[in-house]
């Protein structure tokens, strides 16, 4: 079991997920620090991510584009708030316009990642994800839902199209 604990705090609009991996702290950190590794897990398989800019220093930016099944592209960005390699990373995650400019009308979330050794080759990673406001949370989740439902709708359309 990779995920060992999940805490949801509706009052503080926070989700905290604790996970354990059979790897070293450095190996876990590399999945955040190496853009080629990051893009292999950040986006869902149906929306693979491609990281075009990756600067994990305070004030630095990470930008990425996710490409959907119909070639539709969705851009996102992180702004790095704090970093202490290889054990902690804090960033704000948001959406961007087609040209990569951060869209500040869209909701953002803050993430704090903490990585620590439990034993040799055993590492704990805790991710805390926080929304700015209930309205933002509802908006973001509604959009997540919209994407999920749209993907499902497209699948249904594809199935229907293949019927005689």
């Amino acid at each position: 079991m990779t995920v060992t604990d999940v805490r949801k705090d509706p009052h503080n609009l926070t989700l905290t997920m604790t996970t354990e991996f059979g790897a070293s702290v450095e190996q876990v950190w590399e999945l955040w620090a190496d853009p080629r590794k990051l893009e292999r897990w950040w986006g869902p398989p149906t929306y693979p991510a491609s990281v075009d800019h990756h600067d994990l220093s305070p004030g630095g930016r990470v930008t990425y584009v996710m490409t959907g099944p119909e070639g539709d592209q969705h851009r996102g960005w992180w702004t790095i708030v704090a970093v202490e390699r290889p054990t902690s990373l804090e960033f704000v995650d948001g959406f961007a316009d087609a040209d990569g400019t951060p869209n500040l009308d869209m909701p953002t979330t803050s993430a704090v990642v903490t990585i620590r050794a439990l034993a040799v080759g055993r590492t704990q990673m805790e991710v805390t994800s926080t929304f700015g406001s209930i309205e933002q949370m509802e908006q973001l989740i509604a959009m997540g839902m919209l994407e999920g439902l749209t993907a499902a709708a497209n699948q249904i359309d594809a199935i229907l199209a293949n019927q005689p």
Partner: protein
Amino acid sequence: MVVDLDRQSAEEIDRVFHALADATRRDIVQRVLDGEWSVSALAREYPMSFAAVQKHVAVLERAELVTKERRGREQLVHPNLATVRRAARVLEGLEALWRERIVRFQSVLDDDL
């Protein structure tokens, strides 16, 4: 993102899917979640006729994603938060997103060890 829709009938789900499969309608839902919009104010935001926007709102209304209220000469569009929330299950959605990420995270780690 995994969404638990088991309490909705297949027909309701079908209407919600159909309503949200269109970018303009998704945009309308996002706008009305953010504040009050009249149909005519919405119509000014899109490169299409008032009647076309009105049709989009009607599709959303049938899917129970929005409600319409007449105020004087204006028709105001409100989000139906019960439907939006029920389908969303706010933090559960975020949890599902991160659980999926962690599964992929583990497999990238496994590949590299």
